[in-house]
């Protein structure tokens, strides 16, 4: 019996293969196969009749002629970049830096408050916003406005984008907050104390020491969140469902509507296939840039 790690590459013994099999099976059936299936369906005219007629690149040519697409592209761009810059990076980093400068207790409480939206079931979180922004005089916002003598507003209809970015951004900021906080806490305190002894101001410490050390986490959050924002549509679906008249329709939601509202599965898949391609390319780049190879040998030791 071998009791030290085997260095030679051998086939996994059958009993241990059983340990791996359930995970492998699920990942293949619901992850790997769908990736290729998306490509295959995008070449068909699959609709409510469920007939697999291959039509070549017709769907992709239709994409180029779709008059709604430029709108959708612009929407997606605005949605991804404003959310990413203002919230995931801006607010996330800001909150992480500010709470890191606080004593333990208030810092933990503040972080908890900002993490709450992320762990609220998304439907309830949206419900909260709908109540807050209710266009009638009963909405919380309008009640506050009334107290100052202002007329009620319907922000969700008038400024749908600002609302979507804000609502979605607040949950996204918490991921940045968690990652940046962990990174800031891993900076040796002595480094900061030494800088202070040498006469550095707080601003200097943040700008010259902490921020440069956060370069990798920032890049990580940027790439990771760009991908997930490009694909996410839950908040838009629940807030405006893409309306009024495609004003807030984003790429994945447009594909989703084509597939599940109009049963145009082929066309929907052509749209998601574009994202699958982008997703694959960015994932690979991400792999190269972040050089995960060290994780493959000696992964981080959890002190749990």
């Amino acid at each position, binding site marked *: 019996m071998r009791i030290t790690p085997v260095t030679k590459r051998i086939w996994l013994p059958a009993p241990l293969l059983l340990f791996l099999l359930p995970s492998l099976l699920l990942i293949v059936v619901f992850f790997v196969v769908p990736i290729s299936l998306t490509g295959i369906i995008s070449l068909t005219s699959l609709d409510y009749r469920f007939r697999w007629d291959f039509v070549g690149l017709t769907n992709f040519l239709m994409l180029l002629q779709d008059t709604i697409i430029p709108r959708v592209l612009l929407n997606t761009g605005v949605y991804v970049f404003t959310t990413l810059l203002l919230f995931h990076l801006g607010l996330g980093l800001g909150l992480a830096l500010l709470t890191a400068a606080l004593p333990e207790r208030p810092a933990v409480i503040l972080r908890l408050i*900002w993490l709450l939206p992320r762990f609220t079931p998304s439907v*309830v979180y949206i419900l909260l916003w709908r109540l807050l922004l209710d266009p009638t005089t009963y909405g919380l916002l309008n009640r506050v406005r009334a107290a100052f003598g202002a007329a009620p507003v319907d922000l969700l209809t008038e400024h749908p984008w600002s609302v979507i970015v804000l609502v979605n951004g607040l949950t996204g900021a918490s991921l940045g907050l968690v990652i940046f906080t962990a990174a800031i806490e891993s900076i040796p305190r002595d480094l900061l104390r030494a800088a202070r002894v040498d006469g550095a101001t*707080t601003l200097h410490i943040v700008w010259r020491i*902490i921020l440069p050390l956060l370069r990798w986490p920032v890049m990580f959050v940027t790439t990771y969140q760009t*991908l997930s924002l490009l694909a996410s549509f839950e908040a838009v679906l629940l807030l405006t469902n893409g309306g009024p008249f495609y004003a807030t329709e984003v790429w994945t939601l447009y594909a989703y509507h084509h597939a599940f509202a109009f049963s145009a599965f082929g066309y929907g898949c052509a749209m998601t296939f574009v994202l699958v391609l982008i997703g694959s390319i960015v994932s690979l780049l991400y792999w190269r840039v972040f050089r995960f190879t060290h994780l493959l040998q000696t992964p981080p030791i959890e002190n749990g």
Partner: protein
Amino acid sequence: MRGEDDGITQHRGAHRVLTAALALLSIPIVLMYLWLLLASVNRDSLSSFLPTGWTLHHWRFLWLATIKPGYPNIWVVTGNSLLFAIAVMVLEVSMALLAGYVLSRWQFRGRLLLLQGTLLLHAFPAITLIIAVFFILRALRLLHTLAGVMLVKVALELPFALWVMKGFFDGIPWQVEMAALVDGANRFTTWYRILLPQIRPGITALSLFAFLSGWGEYVFLVTFILDKSGWTLSRYVASILGEGEVFVDYGLITAVGLFYMLPALVLFTLAHKYLVRLPFGVGTR
């Protein structure tokens, strides 16, 4: 450790100003949640923020057969949500425990490929596969069943779960296992009796997050389940959101929303301390 001598700023005054500023910024969030609580027991939740009188009338959905014709009973819906979240949790954690162990301890053909593959999938926007997954569920005759959506949900979270569990196994020294093996225990016994008890915090953490994610799931459920008998709380609340006339009944919506949120809130208070420990972003370490 932290506090007075944290190195970023040392002024007590600066702490106070910062705390106050951040607290002010956080007020809207706190108010939103506070309102959910107050409106659900406020006799007149439409006209005033602070309760004018207490009532349990808004919670009537708990004992009425249905709040409105066409809506399933709340306990059936809650049962579905619980079943879904628990199944996702149990499946995800047990699979990650089995596979994480092998990935952490064994060097074999294909290990690198598997590790690289799952790490890539970890960043992959899985929701884009929703149309293809629809056809797979259809082919497997699992469309419109909670079981089908459970499997999808578990599969999409597995790459992350595998890495978390592998990380926890990596933290246990080899000697422990070696001792058990020398004493004649087999692989399965060693895994079950020796290793699992040592990574209990990891199991707890992953279970909490898996449950929370199953409990909050909406898009896959609304897309793949049509039948009302398969409704979960997310679907139930979303339907109320879409109803103009019910939407005027603030008391009822907030009570239903709060009812759905409470388990998540309790688990969140238990889970948050694990948050920083999970390799959320594997790249951050």
